[in-house]
């Protein structure tokens, strides 16, 4: 049984893993998990990841959750090029530092912006709550400022002189709100330049391929397919964003 990756390309960490596997020629079976249909909450998927989240990995009998853990696993098992997770003590520590920090500093607030701008309006049929959106963007601002003015002032990529797992994760996260009209790069020139560098390093075609889904406007008819699910999702989203 080949490696299986359970992914929804609407999810930034899933895109990071997708890009990483493709870029490194890692053979895998793509197992789609449609978050919009609540597939991550169904019993079949919970057997793979009881945490009910994507991405997830299955390698024979071995199950693994958490994108950071999955990226590290793949880099070790398939012995990918050292720049992804550099062997030098301090360089590696910089990558670790970003991968730890980003959970609460980037992923959480960036996801909330995306949920407010795209997912909640899509499922509720209501227009975007712009007051709430501004508040949520405000929460992301200190992290973007830190990256633009402190981290990228000293080097071309987030951890070292070359692209690494840190850049990969950051890129797909920051693309999330950007893809739906909240351009996070607009006010931050170093971040914008970094984005271009990362895209070039990953390969523009691969980046485009991975982001095709999130860049497309959602079809409003999708939300009406299962009104009960839509209502449940709206309730969860309201709670999360309040």
């Amino acid at each position, binding site marked *: 049984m080949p490696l299986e990756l359970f992914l929804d390309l609407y999810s930034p960490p899933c895109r990071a893993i997708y890009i990483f596997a493709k870029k490194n020629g890692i053979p895998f079976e793509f197992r789609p998990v449609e978050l919009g249909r609540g597939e991550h909450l169904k019993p079949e998927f919970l057997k793979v990841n*009881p945490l009910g989240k994507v991405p997830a990995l299955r390698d024979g009998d071995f199950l693994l959750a*958490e994108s950071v*853990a999955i990226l*590290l696993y793949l880099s*070790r098992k398939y012995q990918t090029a050292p720049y992804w997770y550099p062997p030098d003590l301090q360089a590696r520590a*910089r990558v*670790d530092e970003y991968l730890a920090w980003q959970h609460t500093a980037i992923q*959480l607030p960036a996801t909330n912006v995306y949920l407010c701008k795209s997912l909640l309006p899509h499922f509720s049929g209501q227009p975007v709550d712009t007051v709430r959106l501004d508040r949520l963007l405000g929460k992301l601002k200190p992290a973007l400022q830190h990256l633009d003015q402190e981290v990228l002032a000293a080097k071309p990529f987030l951890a070292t002189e070359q692209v690494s797992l840190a850049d990969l994760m950051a890129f797909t996260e920051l693309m999330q709100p950007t893809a739906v009209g909240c351009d996070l790069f607009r006010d931050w020139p170093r971040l914008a330049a970094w984005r271009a560098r990362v895209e070039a390093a990953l390969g523009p075609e691969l980046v485009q391929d991975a982001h095709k889904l999130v860049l497309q406007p959602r079809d409003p008819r999708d939300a009406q397919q299962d009104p009960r699910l839509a209502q449940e999702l709206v309730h969860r989203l309201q709670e999360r964003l309040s």
Partner: protein
Amino acid sequence: MGLELYLDLLSASCRAVYIFARKNNIPFDFQFVDLLKGHHHSKEYIKINPLKKVPSLKDGKFVLSESVAILFYLCRKYSTPSHWYPPDLHTRARVDEFMAWQHTAIQMPMSRILWIKMLIPMITGEEVPDEKVEQMLAEVKNSMQLFEEKFLQDKMFIAGDHISLADVVALVEMMQPMGGNYNVFLSSSKIAEWRMRVELAIGPSLFGEAHDRLMRLAEWDSSTLDPMVKERICELLQKFK
């Protein structure tokens, strides 16, 4: 100048780093950054860590933040025994998996319990609305359940038969609500047993010492609180109303 660790043991992340360094006899200078006095906002500390958070590590000119990164760095630099971060591909992945999950699933909610049950009432004189408290307690309960069912299961420790970084990080975070007299270990005998195993493996005296400041938080005179910190706490309370 030797290794410096900038810490306040009130913070779970700091306790993890402190316990690990002491347990492995890693020599370091303990630089106390008093969170209750707002030292993390001082000009001197901002030079060390512009994000104003603890812990930070300073090794010569090299400055590192984030407890998980610091723990991995110490493991590697000081070649600590392999059980702390097992080399086996799958076992290591299990540790990585927990270390990633815990940021939002354990650390955040556990820390919030201390705020809502102890720090906010103590400092502002106001209680957080019951509804919000119930919501947060439910979140913690859910996390503890997932911890038991997915991460611990029937093993002695998270990675298997031996203690690893994951257990240290998990336990110090679950201890945080204790500062506010809230015990998350009561609901599961499996977790309570795991807790004892981890404390024993760390050493009860080191574990106790690391948690002393947290356990004495109730005795703290909140009138000495730095005004900037107090302001932030009052803002926090607004969010919960």
